[in-house]
């Protein structure tokens, strides 16, 4: 258990979303099914820090700059 940001997640890590950045992007994330308190799996971390997470059966890619702003708990 470690407080961190999403860009630090590594392939295969389960992560829990602690805090999302505010503004429009937060609403967009919630609509896609990523909200605070959710647990997801990081299924890919590309060189440079683009993150791909999986929630249930859905895969979502997040750019490095966005991932940096998402606070998570690394499990």
């Amino acid at each position: 258990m470690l407080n961190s940001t999403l860009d630090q997640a590594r392939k295969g890590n389960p992560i829990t979303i602690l805090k999302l950045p505010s503004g429009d992007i937060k609403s967009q994330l919630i609509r896609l099914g990523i909200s605070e308190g959710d647990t997801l799996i990081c299924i890919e971390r590309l060189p440079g820090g683009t993150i791909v997470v999986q929630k249930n059966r859905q895969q979502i890619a997040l750019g490095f700059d966005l991932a940096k702003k998402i606070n998570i708990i690394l499990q």
Partner: protein
Amino acid sequence: MKFDNILKLDSDKITSSLLVEEETNSTQKVVLVGNPNVGKSCIFNYMSGMYVDVSNFPGTTVSITKSNYKGKDVFDTPGIYGVGSFNDEEKVARDIILSADVILNVVNALNLDRDLFLTLQLIDMGKKVSVLLNFSDELKKRKIKIDTQKLSELLGVEVYETAAVDKIGFDKIGEAIEKARTGKQELDLHFILQQVMAKSIPQCDSLLILEGDESIAQKHNITNGTANEREKIYIGRRNRVNEIIDVVEHEDSKKGEIFNLFGRYSLNPKTGIPILFVMLVIVYFFIGDIVSQRIVNFTENKIGKEFFEYNAKSFVGDFTPVDIDVVVHDNNGNPVNQRLFKFPSGINSNTQLKNEFELFSKQAGAQSDFHFSNPIAKLFFGEFGVVTMTVTYLLFLLLPLVIGFYFVMAMLEDSGYLPRLATMLDRSFNKIGLNGRAVIPIMLGFGCITMANITTRLLGSEREKSIVTAILQFVIPCSAQLAVIAALLSGAGFGPMILYVSVIFTVLITLSTILNKMLPGESSPLLIDLPMIGFPRMRNVLKKTFFRSFGFMKEASFWFFIGALAVGLMDISGILQVWQNLLAPFTTNWLKLPKEAANAFVMGMVRRDFGAAGLFHMSLTVMQKTVAIITITLFVPCIAAFVVMLKERGWKEGMIIWFGTWITAFLIGGIVAQFVI
């Protein structure tokens, strides 16, 4: 069973005219709404008896399609994750949804937790809704159980299981429309809603106002909710989705088991770059060889020039003074015979010469240049003739290329590869102020800049649109130009090619870095849903190619016509000639090219490949050729791309980019010339 209308996506503008018209007649308005990749368009096709755009890449459906089903108007909308105004497509979808009588909400049973957010929002809007639970056939394969009855009970609306591939459950669509009703709304939210609705604002508008939609609030003259309030509503709705999922969905296998090797491999650069490379080679053979060489050669030269233009021009020449220069080429393209026919009072006035001309000009390898002295005939049928050039260019050159490119894009989209490519390239694009999505317009640019200029609409911010538009006009050579460049470079060896590619690439990096630093604001980060990867369905791909190509031609043709008219007027008024003389000193002293190369640049303004093709006939050294094609590549886009760019980006930005390409082309071309010639 008719296809009434393709409504152009023009963000807010389309609403007024369309919706007003709809409100006045009493036909029930059914709107299909769903997330991207839920099979919505398959259902629409079934209802309309005709296939339409299926978009797998969120962000590329550029049209709303309307059809008719059992006497009701049916509208298809772009895939959206929620009703709102985060981008142009959402705005279009939102307006259609607001005016709907019945909503058929198509839901992907495999992604129920994502899709129900939209469902609940539609129910909160107080619309009559029926839910079509699509991909229900996939549920068994994946050992997932969804309690449809319970779901229907919790939502308060009917839920129908469908499977688009085998048309299972499609016979219930009529019933779904009949039985559509308002669902169960959350009480707390409904209480707040009542306060807005008390101002006699419809419930659907009220919800969007609470969720912070500015333009809807303005329409009713009240202030919209803040981002904070929207978040609260969104979080509440998300929690309700989770509660519903807990009750209705049961999965026997472990969660998150879908695992697609190809999908994974295409994401990671180590394997993704080789995959991309293989894709590009295939695309190159298809577009570069088959379409732009074989097909376009036939359509442009045989149909366009030798048949259409020849006949149109000689018909006009029958009645008006014309000089015709006929050159006969052998199989290698070398001129072997030439004759000049003069008809000072029209071809028909001299029957004997007419017969001679027809005999001479119809032999194999003959090419006829018509020179009209009547300015009107020249304007419409001359070298830049508005009629002749527009038709040949649009139908016989551009159309095959556009179809080819849209076909490739449709294949990539339908397979789910495109969002993965965007993801893989995201970090590299970040360095120039873009996110991975920008790969779409830039890839299209290698086909046709005009087409790519329109596609910049899918980018998230004005800043990104500006950067991509500039990159497209400055450095990306379109396929017509690429073909000529490849031919010019083919005999030149490896050195010039390396020089060309590295100069163009350096300009690309420098330009985009400067723009990224200079332009205010921030670029939007990548946030993209990766659909399952699979083999594209040919029927979908073909129909999508058709609709996109049709839409493009509809949009670009008029502007190209205007451009051709402008160039034609410049030609007959002598401005074109003045321009050529003005450029001549630059060409000879600075670029170290022969004086005639100036013609190539002027022609390049009309059509980029004209510019490059003009260089064929000059005797140039290898390095002169290299300098010339560097300059031509960096030079202004063609007249059609220019006009579409002005329309998309406005006069100010468009003119800055246009003049910028002049300066850059001559500056960089000249600098290279100083070193190598």
